[in-house]
């Protein structure tokens, strides 16, 4: 059978980097083809070439046997190729109908937009594919899952046959992920074909028909899910054996380090973000906070680290009241903070590593004597930590903005772990990182726990929370809806709690 899409020898060079090195890929009609690879492996470059955003230096694209020149996304769309980007391309203040029409407008005879016709067509599509969405709703009022459905409807509206889904599960709850895969299955049943980009091994094995693995711009292997397992895929992806399961001893919790009582926090818009929560973290344990993004986790971390202050309740660290303390005070009491958004909060991108390493100790000896910075000892510290934490950089004065995400995270970890700490607050510590870096960060977190540090892990990656935590607290709508011992918790149980369905057996 003729493939619907064939890429032959696609090569793309960027200054100093060979992003795609003679990549061949074929997509059969009606299959879900997973494209697996670490961040920076070249998946996105390849898909951007296919979608007409980049010009390949070499290679050809064939759609249904015909050679295709894609110079812009409109060429790709005309050839029936559609893409759902990781970050949705929707206008929040437009309705679903308006978003779907955007760039593909139906006009009335008088040249005005024909919203009615478009809405009718959207209803038709959503019925045909069971994609529930109200065409008249504003996108800003939709859940993330529903927004993704709008993106898919957009492609169906444009009569795409080939769907590219870029990391579609990154923002979804486990239940929403299941729903997405039902939708994907339904799409291929109706003759569509899907390229599904991801770095999550479990999803690939469960939901794809064929797997192609890319590493450093080359296709390094392909597999069929039945014949592959997580370890073999991970090894292919990273180029070496990786341990996917975190090996850890049972926790030995000691004294309480962080105690939170009846905390109430408003967000930046003065809306209730945290609704009377209490918990404690003991030395030598990892308390994981699970939950879908946007249920108060961000505000919780900000308040615990002194970046914001609660309107009610009490926070104490090792017996000291830090409810209204500023970040400097919290840091000096021995708290390390791996922030959720490393580029926004954790690093100064156009500063060199040496300055980023000293970011919160720049005023202390040996980094400073009085008000004078001591460049030499700062450099020595930075070079030492670059070695210890395996930061890949030509030297200590390179700007961290030029680093990969994993390398940037290593700089933050190096900085935070090089101090004597009693409390570690890690928020989304592995977001956007590759398998190798994730393994590294995970091991470091466990190491700190075993050293007797109290660890609060906030993550929307359920697998991560379940693997690392000793206890799991689930946040929903600003409340902690359940605290479970990690050893006994099941994914289904936590998934339900994350969705706000409180099971009667959970202890709060």
């Amino acid at each position, binding site marked *: 059978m003729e493939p619907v899409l064939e890429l032959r020898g696609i090569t793309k060079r960027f*200054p*100093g980097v060979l992003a795609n090195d003679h990549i061949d890929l074929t997509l059969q009609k009606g299959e879900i083809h997973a494209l697996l690879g670490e961040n920076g492996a070249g998946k996105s470059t390849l898909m951007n070439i296919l979608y007409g955003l980049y010009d390949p230096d070499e290679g050809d694209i064939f759609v249904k046997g015909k050679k295709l020149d894609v110079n812009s996304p409109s060429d790709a769309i005309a050839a029936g190729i559609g893409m759902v980007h990781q970050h949705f391309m929707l206008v929040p203040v437009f309705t679903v109908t308006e978003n779907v029409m955007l760039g593909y407008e139906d006009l009335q005879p008088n040249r005005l937009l024909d919203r009615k016709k478009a809405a009718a067509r959207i209803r038709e599509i959503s019925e045909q594919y069971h994609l529930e969405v109200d065409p008249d709703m504003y996108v800003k009022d939709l859940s993330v899952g529903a927004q993704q459905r709008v993106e898919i409807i957009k492609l169906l509206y444009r009569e795409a046959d080939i769907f590219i889904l870029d990391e579609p599960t990154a923002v979804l709850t486990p239940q929403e992920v299941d729903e997405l895969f039902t939708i994907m299955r339904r799409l291929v049943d109706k003759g569509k074909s899907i390229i599904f980009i991801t770095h999550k091994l479990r999803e690939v094995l469960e939901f794809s028909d064929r797997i192609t693995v890319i590493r450093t711009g080359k296709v390094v292997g392909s597999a069929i899910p039945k014949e592959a397992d997580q370890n073999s895929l991970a090894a292919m992806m990273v180029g070496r054996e990786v341990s996917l399961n975190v090996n850890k001893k049972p926790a030995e919790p000691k004294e309480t380090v962080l105690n939170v009582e009846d905390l109430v926090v408003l967000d930046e818009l003065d809306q209730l973000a945290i609704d009377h929560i209490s918990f404690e973290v003991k030395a030598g344990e990892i308390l994981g906070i699970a939950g879908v993004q946007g249920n108060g986790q961000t505000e919780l971390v900000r308040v615990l*680290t*002194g*970046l914001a202050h609660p309107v009610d309740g009490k926070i104490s660290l090792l017996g000291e009241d830090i409810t209204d303390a*500023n*970040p*400097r*005070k919290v*840091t000096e009491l021995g708290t390390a*903070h791996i*922030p959720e958004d490393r580029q*926004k*909060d*954790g*690093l*100064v*991108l*156009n*500063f060199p590593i040496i*300055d980023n390493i*000293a*970011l*919160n100790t*720049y*005023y202390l000896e040996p980094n*400073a004597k009085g*008000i*004078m*910075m001591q*460049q030499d000892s700062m450099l020595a510290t930075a*070079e030492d930590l*670059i*070695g*210890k934490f*395996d930061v890949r950089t*030509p*030297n*200590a004065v390179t*700007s961290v*903005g*030029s680093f990969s995400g994993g390398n940037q995270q290593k700089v933050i970890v190096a900085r935070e772990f090089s101090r004597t700490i009693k409390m570690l607050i890690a928020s989304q510590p592995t977001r956007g990182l590759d398998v190798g870096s994730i393994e590294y960060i995970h091991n470091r977190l466990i190491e700190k726990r075993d050293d007797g540090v109290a660890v609060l892990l906030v993550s929307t990656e359920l697998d991560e929370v379940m693997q690392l935590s000793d206890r799991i607290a689930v946040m929903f709508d600003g409340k902690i809806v359940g605290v479970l011992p990690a050893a006994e918790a099941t994914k289904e149980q936590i998934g339900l709690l994350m969705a706000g369905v409180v099971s009667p057996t959970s202890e709060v």
Partner: protein
Amino acid sequence: MSKEKLTNQTDDIQAAKKDVGKTFLEEFSKSSTMVTILAIISGLILGGLLVALTTEEVYTAPSLGQGLRVALNAIWKTYEALFTGGIGTPSKIVAALQSGDAVDIRRAFNPFFESLVAATPYIFAGLAVALGFQVGLFNIGAEGQIFIGALCAVAAGIYLKGLPGIIHVPLAMGAGALGGAIWGFIPGLLKAKTGAHEVINSIMMNYIAFRLSEFILTGVLKDPERFVPVSAPIQESAELHRFFQAPIRFHSGFFIALVMALLVYILLYKTTWGFELRTVGANSNAARYAGMNIVFNTVIAMSLSGALAGMAGANEVLGINHNLAVAFSSGYGFDAIALALIGKNHPLGVVLAGLLFGFLRNGAVQMQLTAGIPIDIISILQAFILAFIAAPAIIRTIYRLKEPDFEEAAVKLSGWGGN
């Protein structure tokens, strides 16, 4: 990590350090300094083109070749006049040195020293704006701070009496700095406490400064013996020292400016305060995360910026005019914004850009006299240079420079929108 790997890593770092020399040229072609230099050259070329295109004889020339010759001649004459006006005429210098006549020698060297005199207020004001930019603040109020600085310096120069110069000069200069600092402090405080944008507020402060200085110059500070609104002359003890006799006006303000540049450099790059200031400017979220006080740093930065601008004003009245007239500043505070951008907000860059501006401004006077080219061509030249610096992609494309590995926010106008 094994010990061996650790030593390997440090070896790598050592090796990388040694490689710096080798790859210097390559790196330099990527650097923004190269772009700046090429931008200046491109600005001069375009300026020359403009001179040729506006020369009437080019169009009335009988043949193409003749027209071309006329055009090149016009460009040559323009830049020759700019050079002799800004630096001096080599033949005159040689002749004067041979004759040994002191007045002739001073006259021959005067253009060069006059360029330094013209550069001095640019350096002060450029430092002021650059310091603001480094902290993510756009101090567009330097012009107003210059007026207030001049006002305070003149007041201190007139009313403090019987002091030796060694005390009077620093006092008057300090009064200027203090006045400017207060004028910067107000928008700084408003920004930090209420979020009111410093651009809007420092523009408003400009208007207050202009009208206030007019009010005072037509009132209490007016020289009663003169008809125009000009202050009385300052005490001789408050005058900045002039190193040579007339006509050379070169005075100690130039060296004070250089010292200030050095101090700003040390403050920004060598002290913990400067580290805080730069961090707040580069990423205020990370600064907050690191426990820095954004409010305090914002207020301090605007005050220091104002103080430097105030010194620009003080320098002019204590060094050159020896009194204060209405509208004595020809927009130093606004030119300083362009200057800071050309100097990449670095003190050394500001000094170099200040010298360039001083040379261009001073040379332009001569250019207007001998070549008949209007002085405004200098503003156009500056605009060309700025446009090229603001759009480095143009320069990189024209000269086929390599893209930088990581585009630093070199010309960072934070505060516009984002922040």
